[in-house]
């Protein structure tokens, strides 16, 4: 079955119904990342969020916006652009919905300056797996009343409930251009500092700098390095170990691209390289997470705190009906 609610209340009534029937539910936005995480073990109902659209509120003077989850990120950005503002998330999937972006926690090069979803989201409305609507946070940038469920929902891959509405802090738009370099790493500067490190070619480094007049955007900027048939892997490292991790990936014949300023990189790998890549990432104080599913590949490796995560999942979704088996299993 498939349902496409057009309001939070309608989504709630559908999910109450699904709960009563014991249906397994998979939430889908624009469908750009349905291949991420393990495929759900069971699916009786696909809840399509693309009917939950629109900017509920854009308070330009307060630099905040409240937006329904099915709104495409690109559409939100163009609305905000009229006021010279942006949601400072340069996700690699501009066609993705806002809710999907939050649920999967994608980020781009500018995270070096603005952080990621968790740093920008200030409030959330969810529909719990039992169909109850709940809110946390609010629409002011500073707020410590109650638990920060918006962060818990960020990166939860649709396993804890439906993200129906999000509130974000915004930033002024800035005009930028790029500085490109070959041969050495350089140092941290500007809004973003990225590397393109193919296994079998020259490494290129570039910065996104405020102001016009620099080089145009490199064609690889902010794009994942993997192609069809390759695994997409997210690699993280402590900042002092980023170069070591890049060197290790090169030795393994793995192409990498990503943020030198934050130590978050993306790699294109083959299934048999994951073990070595993961060992290199651990050595560098970070992790290797396989983003795109592949049969027989351990996507996460050891996850510290997994037991607590399972307990959180069991509270929100005691019958394991929301994308069962996808994440935190």
């Amino acid at each position, binding site marked *: *079955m498939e*349902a*496409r609610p057009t309001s939070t209340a*309608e989504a709630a009534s*559908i999910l*109450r*119904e699904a709960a*009563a029937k014991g249906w397994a539910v998979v939430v889908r936005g624009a469908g750009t990342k349905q291949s991420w995480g393990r495929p759900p073990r069971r*699916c009786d*109902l696909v809840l399509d969020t693309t009917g939950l659209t629109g900017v509920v509120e854009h308070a*330009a*003077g*307060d*630099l905040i916006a409240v937006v329904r989850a099915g709104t495409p990120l690109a559409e939100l950005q163009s609305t905000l652009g009229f006021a010279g503002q942006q949601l400072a998330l340069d996700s690699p999937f501009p066609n993705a919905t806002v809710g999907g972006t939050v649920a999967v926690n994608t980020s781009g090069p500018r995270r070096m300056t603005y*952080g990621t979803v*968790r*740093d920008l989201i200030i409030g959330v409305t969810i529909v719990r797996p039992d169909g*109850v609507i709940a*809110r*946390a946070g*609010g629409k*002011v*940038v*500073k*707020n*410590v*009343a*109650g*638990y*920060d469920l918006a*962060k*818990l929902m*960020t*990166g939860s891959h649709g396993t804890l409930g439906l993200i129906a509405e999000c509130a974000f802090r915004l*930033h002024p738009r*800035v005009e930028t251009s790029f500085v490109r370099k070959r041969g050495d790493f350089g140092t941290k500067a500007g809004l973003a500092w990225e590397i393109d490190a193919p296994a079998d070619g020259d490494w290129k480094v570039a910065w996104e700098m*405020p102001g016009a007049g620099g080089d145009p955007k490199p064609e690889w900027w902010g794009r994942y390095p993997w192609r069809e048939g390759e695994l997409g892997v*997210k690699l993280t490292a*402590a*900042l*002092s170990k980023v170069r070591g991790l890049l060197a290790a990936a090169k030795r393994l014949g793995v192409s990498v691209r990503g943020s030198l300023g*934050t130590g*978050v990189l993306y790699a294109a790998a083959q299934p048999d390289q994951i073990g070595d890549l993961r060992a290199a990432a651990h050595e*560098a*104080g*970070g*992790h290797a997470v396989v983003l795109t599913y592949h049969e027989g590949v351990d996507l*996460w490796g050891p*996850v*510290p*705190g997994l*037991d*607590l995560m399972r*307990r*959180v*999942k*069991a*509270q929100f979704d005691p019958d394991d009906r929301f994308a069962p088996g996808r*994440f*935190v299993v």
Partner: protein
Amino acid sequence: MKALVEKLSGRLTKDQIITDPVELRTYECDGLAQYRVSPGLVVLPHNASETAFVVKACAEAGIPFVARGSGTGLSGGALPRRDGVLIVTAQMRSIVELAIEDERAVVQPGVINLHVTRAAAAHGYYYAPDPSSQQICSIGGNVAENSGGAHCLKYGFTTNHVTGLEIVTPDGELVRLGGKALDPPGYDLIGTFVGSEGTLGIATEVTVRLTPVPQAVSTLLAGFASTDEAGAATSAIIAAGIVPAAIEMMDALAIEAAEAAVHCGYPAGAGAVLIVELDGLIEAVEAEFAAVQRLCVDEGAFEIRVAADDAERALIWKGRKSAFAAVGRISPDYIVQDGVIPRTALPEVLRRIDELSQRTGVRVANVFHAGDGNLHPLVLFDDSVPGQAAHAEEVSGAILDLCIEHGGSITGEHGVGVDKSRYMPRMFSDDDLDTMQMVRCAFDPAGLSNPGKVFPTPRLCGEVPGRHKGAHPLQEAGIAEVF
């Protein structure tokens, strides 16, 4: 409790366990002294494994425990329980690692906020979150409260600066979350733990970001006739796309108090002053600083002082930083309120607070982080006059209602603690609070970690969320199709 003391004595030394009633009383309150309870027992662990041992012992005996850092909290978060154990982090004050190349510091929870900055300063770094209490408050307390400070407008709050935690769960297990690298796999339990006010366990090690000291800092003080104009200047600065490191405002009564206390020499006759600080690269700061001065003048600033050096900058900040304590000069007692509004609602809300003050005869001094709409109204009263305390409490509550009415929050940085749990239902529905407590139940099903804080009524963790029965054929209604 006796059995617990015996058990703890097996591993901890005598001076780590306090049972003497006189000594116990020194822990009876935090920075919000109107709530006082002498703890049943105080324990001072030296490290994570001792903390886990104490918590496990509490869990096994079903005895509640409360963490305490420096006890500067302003919402009664560290208020002890007579039937419980107060676990104090004052013996856990080592900076475990200063990893400058990683831009991280790994610290024990009792480490004082400012000490992190002091340790990093020689390397050109600092720890950005700067609560006014930074000379005494602990990093563990900051984590629990998600503390902010004047410079959080640009740099974010504690939660944006914690990349790793080691916690003792309420059943006494040690768990590591995150580390020096970003984006650890799985749910964001760090983001969930930060700001949970000690109700999800005890942080025993914290990995924080270190921020490079900015190349340039420029600070000005602007005098305005009223808070309306100062508020308009704040909005104009933000609207111009400038993100200052800080924008702080004080009204006439707060200025009067600060003058009386520290002679900060703020512009005479000002109805409001703004402190605006910019930092960053030299060129950008210079250009934006000129724009800020212009905007202040455009909105009616009658005097602008620019700090020529660090000494003058310190003088500008002195009045602001001493404002809370200074209010003691003009009123025997006062309540420090902490509410948030959208910053564009500032003039309207300040007018309403003024009306409230006129109507009730209760004086209110306003000091606040104007840039992010975080108000700190100081509600003045005299406890020796019968009824005044209750009256002030009412006005203080009415101010929170104003914040909620304008789409804001009942706390921006001091937390809910015991003091504001009764206001939570004004901001959140029962379902909202119930959902938050599902997290509580995941971490602490027995409800032993700082019980009675944050939530007005605890959730029974065994409960399965209510299910709605009855047919509602989605297919017939056309809402769902066969997939």
